């Protein structure tokens, strides 16, 4: 088992390393502080959204609304948080609470998460359109500074990714609370037999997802300096792909925060790598799909090895 779990994290690490090596081979100038920053800049919001999706997959649900939610947060950040910080913070807190409430309702009424989140994606998207009918707004100055800070040794994006992975690893894998949360995905009945409220725990998992979704939206606006209602719609699919690339499973509470962050970095890098290849723009999206399939095929080999060991 220890062999297996060690293999699980190896796969995302190896795929990132291979892709990084290929990128450096194609474009040696990327091998610098500045180059790395450019390559991974947009990875920070994607990594945060992937962590949010992971929280939901951890309790055996799936979130089809995270992209719309991150877009909504981006719109709130670029308008309210910039103009009236206190009101903006209140709205963001309310959004996190709404996410937690969604988790509680899904569990209490035994609703299919895939449908409820699908419906909520309309709600978030509608609210975002309502707040910001046309692209615009401005990033709060402090957020802009935070996202463009240049720490020594490593670019901000790399430092932030390591920090996100470390914090979520401590929270989900190492802490007792995280173990219980993963238990909801692994065996909800055992958790409720142990005297814990599954509904409350699911609310926590969804609340955490909302929290990381809020962070993702804020990070995104800090990078792009403006927002629009459709800015992050593709995050829904990216985040699911990121979690799976990182060795997570759709069921059973088997997730890896470190893997999820690495998965998000791999997806971001795949896009940059393809533009270095000077591939015809027609084929860029398709090659991203091909890379995804390739990496997931590698996962199959690993899990077979894992079964043997």
């Amino acid at each position, binding site marked *: 088992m220890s062999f297996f779990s060690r293999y699980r994290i190896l796969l995302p690490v190896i795929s990132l390393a291979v892709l990084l090596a290929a990128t450096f081979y194609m474009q040696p100038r990327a091998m610098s502080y500045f180059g790395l920053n450019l390559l991974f800049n947009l990875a920070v919001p994607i990594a945060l959204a992937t962590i949010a999706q992971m929280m939901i997959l951890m309790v055996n649900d799936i979130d089809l609304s995270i992209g719309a939610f991150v877009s909504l947060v981006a719109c709130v950040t670029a308008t309210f948080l910039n103009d009236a910080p206190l009101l903006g913070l209140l709205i963001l807190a309310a959004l996190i609470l709404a996410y937690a409430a969604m988790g509680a309702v899904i569990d209490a009424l035994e609703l*299919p998460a895939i*449908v409820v989140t*699908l419906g909520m*994606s*309309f709600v978030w998207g509608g*609210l975002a359109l309502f707040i910001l009918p046309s692209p615009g707004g401005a990033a709060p100055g402090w957020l802009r500074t935070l996202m463009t800070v240049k720490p020594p040794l490593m670019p901000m994006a790399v430092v932030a990714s390591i920090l996100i992975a470390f914090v979520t690893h401590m929270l989900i894998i190492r802490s007792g609370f995280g173990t219980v949360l993963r238990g909801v995905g692994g065996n909800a009945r055992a958790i409720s037999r142990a005297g814990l409220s599954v509904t409350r725990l699911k609310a926590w998992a969804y609340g955490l997802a909302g929290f990381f979704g809020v962070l993702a939206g804020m990070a995104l606006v800090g990078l792009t300096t403006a927002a629009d209602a459709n800015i992050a719609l593709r995050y829904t699919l990216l985040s699911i792909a990121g979690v799976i690339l990182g060795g997570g499973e759709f*069921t059973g509470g088997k997730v890896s925060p470190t893997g999820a962050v690495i998965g998000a970095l791999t997806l971001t890098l795949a896009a940059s790598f393809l533009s270095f290849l000077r591939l015809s723009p027609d084929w860029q999206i398709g090659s991203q799909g091909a890379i*995804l399939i390739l990496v997931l095929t590698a996962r199959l080999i690993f899990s077979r090895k894992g079964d043997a060991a």
Partner: protein
Amino acid sequence: MSTQSASRTPLAVLISRPWIWSWAAAALAFAATLGLTSGRGAGELAYAALSFGAFAAIVGMGQMLVITLGPGNIDLSVPATMTLAATLALRTMGTEPGTALYGLVIALAVGFCVGIANFALIFLLRLPPIIATLAASLIYQSIAIWSNRGLRIKPPEGLAEFATGRFLGVPNVAWVALVLAILVWVLLERLTWGRWLLATGQNQRAARLAGVPVEAVRAVTYVSVAIFAALAGYLLASFSGGAALNMGTEYLLMSIAVVVIGGCSVAGGDSNVPGVWGAALFMFLVVSMLNSYGTGAGVRNVLTGTIIICIVIAASTRRARQ
């Protein structure tokens, strides 16, 4: 449930049918829209709902078959398949008259290949269907972009006339969707294959032990959904005067939403053809209702989402009572 219903009154039997709710919701949205115009334009509204609902119904029935296969089974490549089939079919026809059938064959062949490819990824590489169809759809999208080259090729005249025309006052596309619905219903309710599909969705292990060729059932289902999507794409492109790269986008959420509102179980093993049709009409009618009340795009989306969730909650509490 079916054994009990014999002794109940006709009304109780009707209410116990899961499809009645989506039809009731559609009727309500229809009435609410007409309430504003005090009854004028009823025919036009019904005609538009049947035309646009037909596309949603076709992709929805395909998605329904896949979702019936059980938890985790879903096809996210529906929009890409629609676009690819429409693009290739229209390019092959090249507005030449009399090529409509040829184009249809091309579109269905594209659907067949896409379905085979999707299932190959799921079966051979053992990828979860969500991620397999998602990754594959990126490739289909690229092929569509590459073959389209930004050109908008018009459908041949005869085909365009058929797609926008009517027969006995009902849009032709609605007839197509209706015939398909009857075929799917017969398949599910009267043929062994449909029983196999439901058995697989209810408990794959039990079905396999009972001798159901589970993998063959799954393969046929994934091919069917792709063929349905391809047909919808072909008709939609002929209906709207050409294929566009983003023509399928809204049908991803739509295909899932109509299945759920239609009263099929998202956990699989239970499907419901009339409900999908009702939901497809409802999805169009609710948007036109909100439009006629003059709501902006933002408010409209919020209300659409809220209504979807309310229907799901209503359906689940009804299930819990039974």
